[in-house]
């Protein structure tokens, strides 16, 4: 028994040491955001600000700027719509592929697997051309169909795994009662695949929330930018970089993700598990 307690303590210590190393950069980010802007090239550099030096001036500056509030709302809007639309579309696709044989089913599934393998960014040139043709350049809403298209393959693949785990007898019973394909989708598939849909939705939210290259390419106006573009926009290359502002905005932009993550932790693991164990 004693040996067991000892090994538990050792494991605990190793894990705590690991956590310290892993979260160190994030603590440094928070501590830098609390330093006065001018102290960033101080010498010697400090990990924590001096106590009497701690200030919220960086946050005050950020929150006083209309455009950053707007960037925040933009990111929230794009992420929420992307999540909602892709949840509906992917679950419908997953349901059809899992349950019905229709012409082109194999080809569709093969394409879904294929696009999971290819990095989304390799398609940025033809997608840019497409965005030009559709006139969605420099439009916030124009980001959404592209984001949805990027997350569909993975989402469909994952949700399909959940749908396949739903006993077919439930479908049969619904049809017996006079239900239709829609009835099964809304009353059987959606409720029972909810954990799967929830877990991919968290991923999709994160994807849309942090997406950088596409939004950076197609969005021009300050007021249409999403948060990642706003954050990287602080870098006037050869001027001076206000790291205090950069990190204050970064901390603020992490908050929604943190909230979503902690609130949905349960689903999150469930989703990953099903995908990996099936492999």
């Amino acid at each position: 028994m004693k040996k067991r307690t000892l090994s538990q303590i050792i494991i605990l210590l190793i894990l705590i040491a690991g956590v310290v190393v892993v979260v160190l950069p994030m603590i440094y980010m928070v501590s830098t955001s609390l330093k006065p802007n001018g102290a960033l090239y101080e010498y010697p550099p400090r990990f924590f600000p001096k106590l009497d030096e701690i200030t919220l001036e960086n946050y005050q500056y950020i929150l006083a700027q209309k455009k950053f509030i707007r960037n925040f709302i933009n990111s929230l809007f794009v992420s929420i719509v992307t999540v909602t639309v892709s949840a509906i579309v992917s679950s419908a696709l997953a349901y059809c592929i899992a349950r019905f044989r229709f012409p082109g089913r194999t080809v569709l599934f093969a394409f879904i697997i294929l696009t999971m393998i290819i990095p989304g960014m390799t398609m940025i040139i033809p997608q840019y051309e497409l965005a030009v043709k559709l006139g969605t350049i420099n439009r916030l809403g124009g980001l959404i169909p592209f984001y949805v298209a990027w997350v569909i393959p993975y989402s469909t693949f994952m949700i399909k795994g959940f749908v396949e785990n739903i006993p077919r007898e439930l479908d049969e019973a619904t049809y017996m009662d006079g239900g239709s394909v829609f009835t099964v989708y809304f009353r059987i598939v959606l409720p029972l695949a909810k954990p799967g849909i929830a877990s991919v939705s968290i991923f999709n939210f994160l994807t849309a929330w942090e997406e950088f290259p596409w939004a950076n390419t197609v969005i021009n106006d300050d007021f249409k930018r999403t948060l990642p573009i706003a954050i990287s926009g602080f870098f006037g290359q050869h001027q001076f970089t206000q790291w205090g502002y950069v990190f204050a905005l970064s901390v603020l932009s992490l908050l929604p993700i943190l909230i979503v993550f902690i609130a949905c932790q349960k689903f999150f693991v469930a989703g990953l598990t099903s995908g990996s164990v099936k492999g």
Partner: protein
Amino acid sequence: MKLKAKGKIQIGVLLLPGLLIFGLFTVYPIVRLFIMSMTKWDFGSFANQELIGFANYMEVLTDKDFHVVFGNTIIYTLITVPGQMILGLLIALLINSLLRGQIPFRVAYYLPVITSWVIASLVFKYVFNTEGLLNYFLCNVIHLSKQNIHWLDTRWGGMAVAMLLGTWKGIGWNMVVFLAALQTVPLELYESAALDGANSWHKFFDITIPSIRGTILFALVMLTIGGFNVYTSIKLITDGKPGHQTDVVLTWMYYKAFSAGKFGYAAALSFIIAIVLAILAVIQFRLMENKE
């Protein structure tokens, strides 16, 4: 099961939005990408793109810069993929053997995963600055180095920072995936092995690893794709400097397309990346099958 006409229509209605979006925004661009890779298309010649066959592919494959950026990508993948998997599995094993208090560790180790690439890259850039905290620590606190190390200014320094960031950010994902897999390994296997007198190493290599082989494969394929997907960290930390020596395939593709205006070249490059990844995925599946 036989479906009536109405059922078929309803299936069609369910499929339609997905097919439309997927078809228009993913399948069509892939086809266009292939056509573009066969055309001469530079800034200024937007209107008249002429077909030139595989010339762009030849140009990419014989380009010295491409060899450098492709090498960088391969090295990035070869180092970060095993790095994340080994550390992730190690932490998963440790957490799994904890009798209580697993959840806080799971959350803490997952934090880097949910930190966006833009933010993580900027933090690393700040820490690894020549005048940054890390150099101060190395030179003035533990005196490991006499001079500030130019982390971001050389090919391997820049790549090392990007690889460290990639590994740091990926450990949590691997930890969660492996933890889930470990919890499905039947305890009886360990118990009977213990009766046979197997030690921890034997248990790990003879029971744990074979039992989670499916997960290892899944992680391997996903992480390899992730390794080729690296863009934001390089873009924000070094932007390819000095002289494109720290560029990876995607930053190079973006540079060629949107800065140099060589759309045909960039399209061919994109297609080459896609083909390489498809081949790698097939090989990885085959290797795992053979071991079985």
